[in-house]
């Protein structure tokens, strides 16, 4: 079956693992399923291999063991159809293009028609109105990251991969983005993978949080987030939300303690 880029795909990882040249294990063989149309967060300590999993799903990194299939096909297939977008940890904006130019580049690369009004709307959505003709060098780190998010959304991807997209964004803007952005991909029907180390962000944005152990990454817990959508600003103060955040934190510390015991046993 070929991936149909008009519908959000299901992503399946079968004993997906990565060992770097030189023998450093980044990801233990892991089974994962990202359900179609859902947002799944990967949470884990820094350097645990979250981003490596994301890069393997995007087809940018070759797995050492196992494989990724997207609607039954290898990632190369959805790449070929330009059906996915990645918001990279480093905004990776081309310095010689304006914010608008960078967003339009994604459309050009994906061989989509460039719709100026739609690009303007995206720029507005990430709070960069008035900065469309500014070059990245004149923007703050957070603004650059927002431009990168806008670029990732521009091609209306059915598979959206977000690698710590809000790392440099200030707290107020981040809260705003966490409210606004999911509406876009929910409305379109998008399978989203969010890599983050912020537990509240993960709970706020996702339908499911997968907690990873320290390197090499292993799944420690798979927690459903049955909170109503659309998520609203007051949600973070509800007991349900707080309990879920506590669950994720507990799983994170459990994972860290297990890793310590493994090291001690060796």
């Amino acid at each position: 079956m070929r991936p149909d880029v008009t519908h959000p795909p299901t992503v399946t990882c079968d004993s997906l693992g990565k060992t770097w040249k030189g023998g450093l294990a980044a990801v233990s063989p892991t089974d994962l399923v990202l359900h179609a149309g859902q947002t799944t967060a990967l949470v884990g300590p820094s350097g645990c291999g979250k981003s490596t999993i994301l890069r393997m799903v995007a087809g940018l990194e070759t797995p050492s063991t196992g494989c990724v299939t997207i609607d039954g096909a290898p990632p190369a297939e959805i790449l070929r159809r330009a059906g996915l977008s990645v918001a990279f940890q480093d905004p990776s904006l081309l310095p010689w293009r304006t914010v608008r130019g960078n967003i339009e580049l994604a459309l050009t690369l994906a061989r989509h028609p460039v719709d100026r009004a739609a690009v303007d709307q995206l720029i507005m959505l990430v709070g960069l109105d008035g900065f469309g003709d500014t070059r990245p060098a004149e923007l703050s780190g957070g603004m650059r990251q927002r431009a990168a998010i806008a670029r990732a959304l521009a091609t209306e991807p059915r598979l959206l991969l977000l690698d710590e997209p809000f790392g440099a964004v200030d707290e107020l803007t981040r809260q705003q983005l966490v409210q606004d952005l999911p509406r876009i991909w929910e409305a379109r029907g998008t399978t989203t993978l969010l890599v983050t180390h912020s537990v509240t962000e993960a709970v706020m944005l996702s339908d499911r949080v997968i907690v990873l152990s320290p390197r090499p990454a292993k799944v420690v817990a798979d927690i459903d987030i049955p909170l109503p959508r659309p998520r609203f600003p007051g949600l973070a103060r509800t007991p349900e939300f707080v309990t879920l955040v506590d669950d994720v934190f507990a799983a994170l510390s459990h994972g860290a303690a297990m890793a310590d015991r493994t090291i001690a046993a060796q």
Partner: protein
Amino acid sequence: MTAASGLAASQHNPWRTTLPGLLIVLLVWEGVGRSMGGTYLLAPPSLVLLWLGDNAGLVGRALSATLSNAAVGFVLGNLAALLLAAMALVWPASQRIVTGVALVVFCLPLVATGPILRVMFGPGNGPQIVLAALAVYYTTLIPLLVGMRAAPASWFDLVRSYGRGPLAALGYIRLMASLPYLFAGLQIAAPAAILGAMVGEFTGAERGLGVLTVRAMRSLDVEMTWALASVATFAAVAAYWGIGALTRAVLRDAPPLILAPPRDDTRRGAPLLRAITGLGGVIAAILVLWGGSIALFGLNPFFAKGPWDVAHAVFWASDAAQTRASLGVALMGTVLLLVPGYLAGLAAGAGLAVVFTLLPKLAGTMMPLAIALRSVPIVTTAPLVVLLLGRGATGTIVLVAVMVFFPTLVACLHGLRQAPGQVMDVFNSYAASPLQRLVRVQIPAMLPAFFAAARMAVPAAVLAVTVVEWLATGIGVGTLMALSASVSDYDMLWAAVVLAASLSALGYAGVGLIESRILRIYAPEQLT
């Protein structure tokens, strides 16, 4: 790039910043020139201008001949660089060979390739154009190769994440990312093209500044010599500034200073084995190109000697021992002039950069002048230094030192500015003295630029020493080449060319070896 923008800013209005320094130089020149009247050494600027006024037509015709040859060579050389860079990009495994052969060809002493080309082309513009092209292609090729790769990996990931291949990466990323590097290369290349064209004219052209320079020297016409040198210098500086202005019109960022040679993407096997196979590949490629082009163009075997002929003359011919002895004596003579001048130039360049950093006001006045003088063609200064210091060793050593001095100064000043701002802030927060900052932060930060300059200065120093030997000194490889050319001993001429090119390439590689050891400690990011 931010540090380089300081340099660019001082170039923005060259006249306002340079004028004080220029005036001082002119006044000193005038004063010394007047006091030395009648000694046939130094003509003051007033007399130089007078001479130029009287001979405007002659100089204008010569200048236009030289410039048009330089321009054609500039275009051809840069086209060759573009093609070579494209080849290395399309077929990465070829990069080692391409850069290795390019370096050795760049190290060929212009004064020796000149006569050979002259014999091949006969009278006309051929040698001037070829030498101008040879003088520029390397300084464009290396920045292009660096620039094509000077993009973060995530930009290429971005292109791949939309399902696009290497061609899209080339079009949307590599070409744009390499532009600042390309312009940086072109700016250095513009004066070099004029230098190449003038060396071509030295070898017996009909028209051009080089022809007049040789005539002026022969007739000991001091005013004419200084006038021609001034005109050539002015043309070179104008070319340098012209490309600089074009760069600022096209690019938003100042062009970067190129430090490390392009990294090798095809690392396989043990380092030593790689080095040996790389070197073997380069030598094999050169021998094939050398012998092949002689056969291909059907060159006259009387003057076109292949690798086999040279090997025969040096090792197996009846007079091989004598040939080897002459080459050895010449090599010793050259090395004795080259090494002191090279080291003195490096020391003076780095030393003055440090002084300028401690006295920033002085630097503001002198820097634009130094940047301009960096582009002065050596050929125009050679006759002057010979006039001033005589035909002995001192003149040659001084000239080599001058040749090495300016690029080293400019690179070291750039390097001193590379000191990381946050580390400087830490030192300032402890109220560290300027000297402490200099020794502990700025000088270590300067080392990569210093070694890059030292490496690039080797071929320049060999060029300088062979030019002066050719023109004046009477010892060394340059003289040997001049003598062999004049008595049509082409075996000896080719052997001397091989010797000078090997000296240059080995020196370059040797400095590169020291450089990579130092960079491993002080600037590991330049190596990966």
